[in-house]
């Protein structure tokens, strides 16, 4: 069934592609006006993306199974993509380097396109199963995905940190390090909040605030990796390559928490992502 939100989100996907192309044009001509345009298109697409999510919400009420669109793989991918876009906008002041916005947009594009194009992702609106019927769902999913999105930015900066090209569009290492660290400063407390809200919810739904379910365990592992990173920086004074490397390890752990656990391991979280 093709619903209106599918069309809106389809359009948003196309505009993400356009934003990507605008970046290429910027790199070719290096005109400030193109960079300004990029930001305007990002703003407009963020509104469109938000509208798509809201319309899916409304559509679910039309189908008489109303719930916030945060309940299955498709909805989580769309929301993850939205969080990345939100993070780009929130960090605008820092993201003065189009190469970082470009890779962030590629991230957002990847997840929204994966949601719409992969045959393995059910795009339909399913009713909420009893385990998910809780107000903790919203705060848990929102905090987790904002943290994931922040870690995406941190990951991009860490990868760029290792790229040794003397190119005018490359930010200097200090800037990369600063943005990397700043995004972890958002991601870490959000991940912590996501784990804690998940634990409180689990207490009411599963009868135990911590069950060592694979997703819980992997979120804890991710949390430990980023905690080690923060301590390496503040206690040991680590900088540079070593810190970027921990950030990359942390991001792989994030991705495994999100995807790997669902596809490879079975557990209590198997109904959702």
């Amino acid at each position, binding site marked *: 069934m093709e619903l209106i939100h599918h069309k809106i989100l389809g359009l948003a996907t196309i505009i993400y592609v356009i934003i990507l192309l605008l970046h290429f044009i910027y790199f070719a001509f290096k005109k400030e006006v193109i960079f300004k345009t990029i930001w305007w298109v990002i703003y407009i697409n963020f509104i469109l993306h938000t509208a798509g999510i809201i319309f899916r919400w409304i559509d679910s009420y039309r189908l008489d199974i109303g719930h916030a669109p945060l309940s299955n793989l498709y909805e989580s991918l769309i929301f993850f993509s939205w969080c990345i876009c939100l993070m780009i906008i929130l960090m605008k002041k820092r993201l003065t380097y189009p190469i970082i916005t470009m890779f962030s947009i590629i991230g957002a594009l990847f997840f929204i396109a994966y949601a719409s194009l992969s045959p393995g992702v059910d795009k339909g609106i399913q009713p909420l199963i*009893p385990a998910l019927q809780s107000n903790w769902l919203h705060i848990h999913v929102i905090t987790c995905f904002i943290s994931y999105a922040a870690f995406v930015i941190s990951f991009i900066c860490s990868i760029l940190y290792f790229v040794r090209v003397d190119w005018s569009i490359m930010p200097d290492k200090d800037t990369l390090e600063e943005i990397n660290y700043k995004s972890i400063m958002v991601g*870490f407390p959000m991940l912590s909040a996501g784990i804690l809200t998940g634990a409180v919810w689990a207490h009411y739904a599963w*009868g135990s605030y911590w069950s060592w379910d694979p997703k819980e365990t992997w979120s804890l*592992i991710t949390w*430990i990796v980023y905690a080690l990173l923060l*301590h390496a920086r503040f206690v040991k*004074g680590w900088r540079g390559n070593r810190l970027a490397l921990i950030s990359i390890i942390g991001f792989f752990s994030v991705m495994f928490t999100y995807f790997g656990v669902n596809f490879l391991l079975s557990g209590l979280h198997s109904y959702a992502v």
Partner: protein
Amino acid sequence: MLPKEPLPLQNATNATRNSDIEDNSIKEKNTINRLFGFFGSVKLTVFILSFIAITSVLGTLIKQNAPAEEYLSTYSETIIRIIVLFKLYDIYHAPWFIGAVVVFAINLGVCTFTRFFRKKKGASFSLPDEKTLSNMELSFTLNKDLEGVLLPLIKKSFKKKIYDSDDGLIYEKNPFSKYGVPLIHISIIVILIGSLVGLIWGYKGFVVLHKGDIKEKFLLRGEGTKEMGLGFAIRCKDFNISYYPNGSPKDYVTTVEVIEKGRVILEKDIRVNNPLNYKGLHLYQSSYGVSPLFMFKIDGKEVNLKEHDEYETQGFIMIPIRFDASIHNFGPGVQVAYLDNNGEPKTAWFLRDIPKMKQRNLAGKTVMLEDIKEDLWTGLEVTYDPGVSIVWTGFALLLLGLYINFFVISGRVYIRRLPDALIVAGISIKHKERFRIAFEKIMRGLNGTDPS
């Protein structure tokens, strides 16, 4: 967990790069000292956290608490021996894992204590020299006469004066933000204590209820058939499952009555996400199932039996042993075991929908299967965890600590009085960007009055 008196430290604990712990040249290193040094080292933190992370991964790769057959069919004999030896089938409750977590908690406690709460004797804030200050990223010099204009501007957002002397002043913005990290650490210890309390004094179990059942006991988990008293009785008034139009489940509701001393104390609908809390026990909607109820007529007498129920009358014994919802498309049926006239065990099938197979003569008795009813049962998980409130306290403190540490801007402003001018410099470790805004606000305020 923390020693009551501050102990002298050996140098091994001074793992911070910019350690400000004074140099205690202790010549006699007694055992307590060494232990304190060991538990206070950052190396131990890194090691133990990595250890916990890696063994946790192992726990997601090896299936936990699976039946023995599953391990036997997956792993070789040697690996199974290792799994059993280290309790890898239940890693997170293995003594060595809990031990590692306890070591981590002690390590965290000692580190936090030595770093944040040990009174530094004679330690006071000192004003950096002129060169250091002018090399700071945020720094400017000012006409000496403008101190009277400068100070009120600084005091607006840098409320606490931590140094005041002839050579200058130091003001601090949100000085409490330095308690963020110790608060986070303490809250983690609180959470771990709470979970330990739950591990020691808590228990879990399961109770199965058919409609109308009254139970006062529940089956303890992991302890075979051992039962435990609830401390009250629950009666299952009703159990309902509702479905969405597409067939997926919408709601599981067990309506129970809590009964004490024969009186109904309260009635409650237990749902997923909505447990019953009574006398410290939590009862969760956990599972459900269908068990068949066989309605027999034996020599004209109505007898209702569940699977494995034994029926005995005048030396005649029969037990329904196997239910099949559909036997070769002939509808539901039940296999019954009985003793024939010679005392030999025999079995016979009854099919509800086939008249010929509905009625049989077993050991001289006329047995008729009138109907098979599907009897729903509801499974409630029972938990008692006295540590939960401690864990919740830890969660609240942790969130507060994270907020203070990550979102409250902190920093210092130094003012050094030079013979002919003032040098003003600011520094923030965690929030450079937002601190810069606060600092530049001071500069802008001055620009209004100072044309230089």
